[in-house]
């Protein structure tokens, strides 16, 4: 029996709920095409980082300025002036335009930054370059011991309003789970203009190299266990905020996708598993997911979407604190 696996995300009609999330795979045309062929319903391009734009410009500037006029024999800079340095968003926009030209699925651009102001204009240029939607990846490590949580939260809200005001395409906001009141924060983000929430971002985490005694930031790929966090929050938020929900982190198998859909996600985003097994893995996940619904005679995934959300589940407290207590008991009683 055929199941209708189409879904709607950010107002976009998608062929299925599998979105290839921002990763090196979505930064190159050949792998983007492979992802589409494997069945991705949409792709999110890698983030254009606020810091990267600034850093690159400044690094280029430094290179010229600090090697200029060193001696009468080396009057100019030590490196030849180039026609262009692509320090701005040009290279990114080029990739975006190429993706649009070569793919039929929606292409979602991604911006990563924190400070409201000048750089948010890139959101508009991404829209102009053809992005079907924009994912704003907001992430800040709050290290200022004088800055209270509400101030930080307000910067998020302001940023989302700014960006939303500058574009007409749908806006998804990708956030971290580290808010005192995540549910309330999500509501406020939606009120500020987010058409969708992406739960959650993963970012560089510091590690320590014991040989060199140095801090080395690194990205750890997700494992299926990471699914639990978005699963919980998808379930809690389903039906309570007026926005699409994309669940990200720990999606490795078709079953993972099913769980998130049942919890209430409109789409699921995959990164680590694709990096690990290659773009074609997406086809396997899609098949597994479809089979699950099909074997259980669902007519559409829409039917099951949110069926195990906190509001719809038989045991709403299961997503709350008591659940934590119980799982500990379960573990200990097993041994």
């Amino acid at each position, binding site marked *: 029996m055929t199941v209708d696996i189409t879904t709607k995300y950010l107002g976009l009609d998608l062929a299925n709920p599998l979105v290839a999330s921002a990763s090196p795979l979505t930064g190159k045309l050949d792998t983007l095409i492979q992802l589409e062929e494997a069945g991705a319903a949409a792709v999110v391009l890698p983030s254009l980082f606020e810091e990267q734009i600034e850093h690159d410009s*400044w690094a280029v500037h430094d290179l010229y300025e*600090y090697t200029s006029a060193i001696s009468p024999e080396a009057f100019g800079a030590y490196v030849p002036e180039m026609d262009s340095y692509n*320090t701005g968003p040009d290279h990114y926009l080029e990739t975006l335009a190429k993706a649009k030209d070569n793919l039929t699925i929606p292409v979602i651009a991604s911006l990563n930054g924190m400070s409201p102001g000048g750089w948010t204009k890139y959101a508009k240029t991404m829209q102009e370059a053809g992005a079907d939607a924009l994912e704003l990846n907001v992430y800040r490590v709050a290290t200022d011991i004088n800055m209270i949580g509400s101030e930080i939260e307000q910067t998020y809200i302001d940023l989302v309003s700014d960006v939303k005001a500058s574009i007409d395409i749908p806006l998804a906001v990708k956030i971290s789970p580290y808010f005192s009141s995540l549910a309330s924060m999500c509501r406020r983000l939606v009120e500020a203009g987010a058409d969708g929430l992406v739960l959650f971002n993963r970012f560089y985490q510091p590690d320590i190299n014991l040989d060199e005694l140095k801090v080395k930031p690194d990205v750890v790929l997700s494992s299926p266990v990471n699914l639990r966090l978005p699963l919980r929050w998808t379930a809690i938020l389903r039906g309570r905020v007026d926005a699409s929900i994309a669940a990200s982190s720990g999606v490795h198998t078709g079953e993972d996708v099913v769980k998130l859909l049942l919890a209430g996600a409109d789409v699921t985003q995959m990164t680590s598993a694709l990096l690990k097994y290659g773009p074609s893995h997406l086809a396997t996940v899609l098949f597994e997911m479809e089979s699950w619904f099909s074997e259980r005679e669902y007519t559409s995934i829409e039917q099951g979407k949110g069926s195990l959300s906190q509001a719809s589940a038989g045991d709403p407290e299961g997503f709350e604190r008591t659940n934590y207590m119980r799982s500990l008991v379960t573990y200990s009683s097993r041994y």
Partner: protein
Amino acid sequence: MTAQHIMVDGNEAATRVAHSVSEVIAIYPITPASPMGELADSWSQVGKPNIWGVIPDVTEMQSEGGAAGAVHGALQAGALCTTFTASQGLLLMIPNMYKIAGELTPTVIHVAARTLATHALSIFGDHSDVMSARQTGFALLASSSVQEAQDMAMVAHAATLRSRVPFLHFFDGFRTSHEVSKIEAISEETIRAMIDDNLIADHRIRALNPNDPKLRGTAQNPDVFFQAREASNVYYNALPGIVQVEMDKLAELTGRQYRLFDYHGAPDAERVVVMMGSGVGAATEAVDYLTAAGEKVGLLTVHLYRPFSIDHFVAALPETVKSVGVLDRTKEPGATGEPLYLDAVAAFAEKGGGPRVIGGRYGLSSKEFDPAMAMTVFDELAKEEPKNHFTVGITDDVTHLSLPVEREWTEPKEVVQAVFFGLGADGTVGANKNSVKIIGENTDMFSQAHFVYDSKKSGAMTVSHLRFGPNKIHSTYEIQQANFVACHQFNFMEKVDVLDIAAEGATFLLNSPYGPDEVWDHLTADTQQQILDKKLKFYVVDAVAVAQAAGLGGRVNTVLQTCFFALAGVLPQDEAIAAIKNGIKKAYGKRGQVVIDRNFAAVDSSLAALAEVTVPAEVSSTMELIPPVPADAPDFVQRVIGMIAARKGDLLPVSALPVDGTFPTATTQYEKRSIALEVPVWDPEICIDCARCALVCPHAAIRLKVYDPAELDGAPDAFQSKPWKGRDFAGMNTTIQVAPEDCTGCAVCVNVCPAKSKEEVKHKAINMVPKMDVLEEEKANFDFFLSIPDYDRTKVKTETVKGSQVLKPLFEYSGSCAGCGETPYVKLMSQMFGDRMIIANATGCSSIYGGNLPTTPYTVDEDGRGPSWSNSLFEDNAEFGFGMRLAVDQQTEMARGLLTELAPQVGGLAGEILDADQSNEEGLAKQRDRVAELKRILATMDSPEAKRLDTLTDYLVKMSIWILGGDGWAYDIGFGGLDHVLASDRNVNILVMDTEVYSNTGGQASKSTPRAAVAKFASGGKPTGKKDLGMIAMSYGHVYVAQVSMGANMTQVAKAFAEAEAHDGPSIIIAFSPCIAHGIDMATMMAHQKEAADSGYWPLYRFNPGEEAEGRPAMKLDSRAPKMSFREFAKSEGRFAMLARANPEHYEELMDQAQDDIDNRWHLYEQMIHVERTAELADEEEEV
């Protein structure tokens, strides 16, 4: 039509024309002509076409000789060609120039005229180079200004086609080549109108072409050569007329009229000066001043110098002239006069009668020539018996040829004269270039900028001289009385008399951390006095604070530029600010919005920070300028070197200077530059005695000593010491000590320090601290440190990292860049062999930091021994060092022969000396003792043999010959000689400090530049791979070859040096030397070296033929197999990363190829470690 005004320097002015009328351009970098090649290359890279819509093909060659050869070939095959050069480079072109001229082939060589190296190298300007080419058959056309550099370039290109005679077009190096000036641009239409396409067609018809076969370059014999040589006369006879026709055509098109000889001055002049080049500007001002005062004087400017048209020359002079002074910017020792003078004399002689003629020299090596000097020559001409063969601009107290300059010169009042003191790379020069452009392009005013540097690559002072005025500016000399003085670095105030140049009532802008109320108390007494005496208007701005607040770090140029415009009042403030911002956009726009935003922010906040100082009525300071050298320095250092260091070298008379260019070594120790903001300080608690900090220090400013604890008597309280941990120096104490005033603050030492605090990891055994916090303490500590005796080198394993660092560096405090990748190798070499080494140094960075005045870094040990050093040329260094070896070997043989002969009288000592083992430090020390004893014995002997031997005894102790240079020398221009020397069996040691670009001339690609790296002349990323010089050397089989990298394996470096020196034959060490051209933070240069090895980009190996003799493969790989990709290494270096940004697709392509290069080379090397080069003879039984 109104001509478009542009602000360009002489190099750009000439290249604009040359590029637009050429099809093939062969180039090679040489100061001060390099920018012409760089511009041509960059224009072609971005697709700028010539006037026929074709992009000129610009190709870098391996030498100027190569460039001339390529030009010759391209001309023979029918292309329109040009090249650019100077100095020694022009000399290398001379053989081809004879050929090109002999074949009547039209071309133009543009020359930024530069001094030829004689007793010393000089990068500065005079006519000694072009005068050496006057006999080649090329026409010589001289330009006196930036405007003329463009216009004469045009005349030359047009006239060469019409006349078939090739042209050498020249203008003065630095004075014209680097002077930014407002000129009327020559339009493309004008260029088109000047070039006759029919003449180009003729040129192509003459080309070699198999469809119309012809032959050139025959060998001719006594019967016809002479006549054939005379056959070209008609072309030379016609040339002056042709040049004048082209000049007239240019005048029709542009309104600018030139003549072969341009006369300026009184129509009834009695005294005339004849000269060519930039000095004409100063002389013109002198003539205008004198004629206004009623004097009958004039100036004849020579444009077409060869062929020298006597008719035109004589006709150009007023008939009233009685006395002519001919000024030559060159010197020909032993000649009856300098060439222009001789031409003038011959001209008058041929015409019969004529005025009295005297000749004189001026301006060698860019020596200043100003209107006062020109007036002095006119005064001399007025004398009854003027001095002939005089000099002007110096004081000759030996042969008394100089004319004393008693005239004074005041520049016109309407000219704004601004002088800026800045630091190399602090942006001052760039901002000033930008300022003159703003004024030149936004107002009707004329403007001019000239830049003066000192000789150091780190902490160099730059002085910018800017003029603005309503009339054309002819002043081709430095500003003498400035009405605006800016000092961009506060610490100059205690070292340099910056206000000496300030005119009365001038404005003084100081970048000061102290506000208007505090700054007075931080000035020297002399500065205060000058501010009061000259009634200066004094302003301060804390430009560092403004720049930092705007996010510009320490770059103060934008802030100070804004303040300059506010104070100078050249433009209304609003217009000035708009123009500055426009300039910022233009200069930095491509780099990104953030760069523009931050600079705009700095502009907007600068004026609020600018404050006028209310000058107190009296001097209150007791501070004095720090003397350039200490009072206890040796006499020569005080009298001569100190004057040069104090920027007063112009005042030294002839008698003060060595007659043959010989200078004492060991002089950098007297020039305390104190340029670091932070210096490293040792924490003995954490130190593990690894000695790495001392090894890697590029300036020998971090030192290690091992000594008996008893030596600590009298140590300053703050002096740190600790027991040595290992068994190698058991019972000894050690100290790591910084030389706080010699350190450049590069932090390479801290970066390599492996010892970290267990409590706080960022705290290492050596840490950077603000210099001012520790300066006095560390000065005292360093003085005490120096007083501790050096460890006995015979008891040290010199070939180890620790052992080598216990030895005194005999190369210290050079002026190389902070964090230089080359100098740690030179220093190590000096520690290991310095007391018995002679160095031949190729021209380049290492000859500049090794031998540039005022002070030089090679020094001596406690016995007064140390490296003896010389630089010959760029191209001949291997041969130069080889010659030294031949001489030492020959003298050693002579000494040994004499000693053998004298053995009966000398006794058993003779045999001991002749059979001595000198393979280690102990053996060398013993031999020195024996030789000292021999000298004592010889002193008692009277025979001629004994006296001869006495002059040769030094050669009985083994000397070590080292040949040093960079990759430009070893891979390119000097490769032929290097190859020949490698092929010999002589014991020379070659150190190639491989920075993978021409570092000294600003980062042009060499054959060592790796694939995918961006460099000048390879701005699209070098498309081909790096030459494997080591493999070429290995192919001989008998050459010791090592590829080393200090940051990758310090032990291997020390071993390689020891093995190379021990190898009785040629040896070559190729040492990876990071350079600012790589686009890295130089503090991390050792880490980059490690990654270069880890990625297989720079594999370490030693190829020791001695191993083969022992039955082992000669090749030993000292690197492990690559463990990271080339991409990963490359992304951290600007030279590669730049291409990734600018052209990602091409970058990816080149990266793949570069990775293949690495994989293939590693594959090859891996096989080589198993290769047995010697064929084993088959057993006889099997042979049957």
